[in-house]
């Protein structure tokens, strides 16, 4: 068993999971909304990246900047039009709303891009030799960007005024409100930030994976597994769990084939749910 290759491959995969799961986790922490549409936003971002790079022949960095901004705007729109209206309703309402949104997005993506696979040939292709292992450049770049942005957002949450506001809305919205924090604005900004992270994750997976409109549903469940294992609402937990699960998925796929390999992740998630629902680093979030 090529241990080093599998380990590196898993960690590189985990970087993208981290970025995705962190966005999802941020949204859950602040709004108590499980965003089923998160993966589909990512899929649409990836497909848009292909359109920008192949269709319009613009350089890849244009997509890196433009697509997350577009996703942030879309997230803000979703928040204002849908989620703000059902705030305070039972959990099932927001679940159903984002689930419905997810099917709408998949359908729209199929209408625009068709149901087939597409990719980004020629962008960040090739590989480099690191510690005696061949690593594809696209995966390495997406890992560095994804983990870098995840850590940057973590820094933002821990050490800035905005971050403190976000954390206090997440812990105790009522107290945050009477302390003069505009919780509606914080929620709006957080949702936009979360969807922008999904968008960036989409841009980063475009050169490394074959992408199609159904990609979102395959990734969202992995992101769920990550935030459950890491602890719902726990940011460092999500990063740690993403790397662990990346390795488990790659090793599992190597040993048992891709389908069963990804089932390992869900089984691990179910196990964690049953044994330690608060996750590895979770603080036992109030729901």
């Amino acid at each position, binding site marked *: 068993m090529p241990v080093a290759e599998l380990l590196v491959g898993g960690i590189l995969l985990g970087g993208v999971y981290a970025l995705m799961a962190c966005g999802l986790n941020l949204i*859950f922490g602040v709004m*108590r909304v*499980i965003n089923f549409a998160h993966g589909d936003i990512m899929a649409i971002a990836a497909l848009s990246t292909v359109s920008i790079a192949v269709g319009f022949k613009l350089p890849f960095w244009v997509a890196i900047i433009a697509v997350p901004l577009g996703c942030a705007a879309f997230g803000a729109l979703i928040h204002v039009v*849908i989620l703000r*209206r*059902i705030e*305070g*309703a*039972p*959990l*099932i*309402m927001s*679940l*159903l*709303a984002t*689930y*419905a*949104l*997810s*099917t*709408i997005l*998949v*359908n*729209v993506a*199929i*209408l625009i891009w068709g149901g087939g696979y597409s990719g980004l040939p020629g962008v960040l292709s090739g590989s480099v030799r690191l510690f005696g292992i061949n690593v594809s450049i696209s995966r390495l770049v997406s890992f560095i960007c994804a983990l870098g942005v995840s850590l940057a957002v973590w820094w933002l949450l821990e050490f800035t005024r905005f971050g403190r506001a976000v954390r206090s809305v997440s812990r105790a919205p009522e107290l945050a409100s009477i302390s003069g924090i505009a919780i509606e604005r914080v929620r709006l900004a957080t949702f936009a930030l979360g969807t922008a992270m999904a968008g960036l994750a989409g841009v980063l997976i475009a050169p490394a994976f074959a992408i199609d409109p159904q990609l979102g*549903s395959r990734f969202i*469940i992995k992101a*769920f*597994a990550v935030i*459950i294992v890491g602890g*719902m609402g726990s940011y460092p937990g999500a990063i740690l769990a993403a790397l662990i699960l990346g390795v488990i998925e790659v090793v599992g796929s190597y040993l*048992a*084939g891709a*389908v*069963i390999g*990804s*089932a390992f992740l*869900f*089984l691990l*998630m*179910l196990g964690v*749910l*049953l044994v330690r*629902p608060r996750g590895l680093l979770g603080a036992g979030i109030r*729901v």
Partner: protein
Amino acid sequence: MKKLGPLTIAGAAGLAALVLPLVGSDYAVSFSIQLLIFLVLAYSWNLIGGYAGYTHFGQVSFFGIGAYVGSLLTFHWNVPWYFAAVVAGVAGGLTAVPLGGAMLRLKGPFFAIGMFGFARVLEAFALGFDSITQGGTGIYLKPLGDLRPLYYVVAGVTAIMLLLTWKLDNSRLGLKLLAIREDENAAESLGIPTTRLKIGAFVASAIAPAAMGSLYAIYLGFIDPPTAFAPNIELTTIAMVLLGGMGTVLGPLFGAVVLSIVNEVLWANYPQIYLACVGTIVLLAVMFTPRGIVNLGMKSGWLAVGRPLFRRLAARAGQPS
């Protein structure tokens, strides 16, 4: 004007269901079988999702288990389809007992994600263990010549589910489940055995969908993992209950009839935007009529007033959005 009560409406629906196969075309019977299958799914979901208030996003796992148990039985051992459906239902119930015991300790979003994940695990296994399930190729079954027996069986199960829900709605048990929905801790403190009741509702809501899964496979003559564990079936079922009114006797009936007709029209005319339309309907229902058609009926006065619906939703009614 005389207001319509549950008995009048259910009676009329039952009569229509009895007469239909005698006068209707094959297309009408075929469409009605689908409608009735979804009605059973909706009534089952209503038990755990509407009455006990658990956000159940994995009912399709039981549907899929049933579909595979039933298909494998008929495929390998030539078991008659009605008998296979019974075995499938029992299999679904037996799966639900330990699963419910484990999963129902989880609350809110954890339960939702856990059950959603469970369905995906099963789908992955159905794809992966292709020596048993024939994986992505799927299993082809001998098609039924005449759909009418299937129709009567499904209609019978639907009637049972409707009666069961009606009995439940008028019993202490129903009130206890509603208490769990409104505030589980308070219910527990009043001496309601919440764990036992939740598991009971969960198991009860698993048996019929498993049987329906088996019958659906017979109806289609084909089953593969994406069909058996389709998230689409899940969404449609929940949308029906939501549209009609969660935790009511007539809600699933109205919701399923309305949504099935809308679906059929959409599917026939605009198959490429079918999913987006269903999604939009769900979104609009969540935003504008979260208490369902039943509530609209009660407010406008043509439906007899029953128990108030989702109280936490009712409390929000006066709030400016």
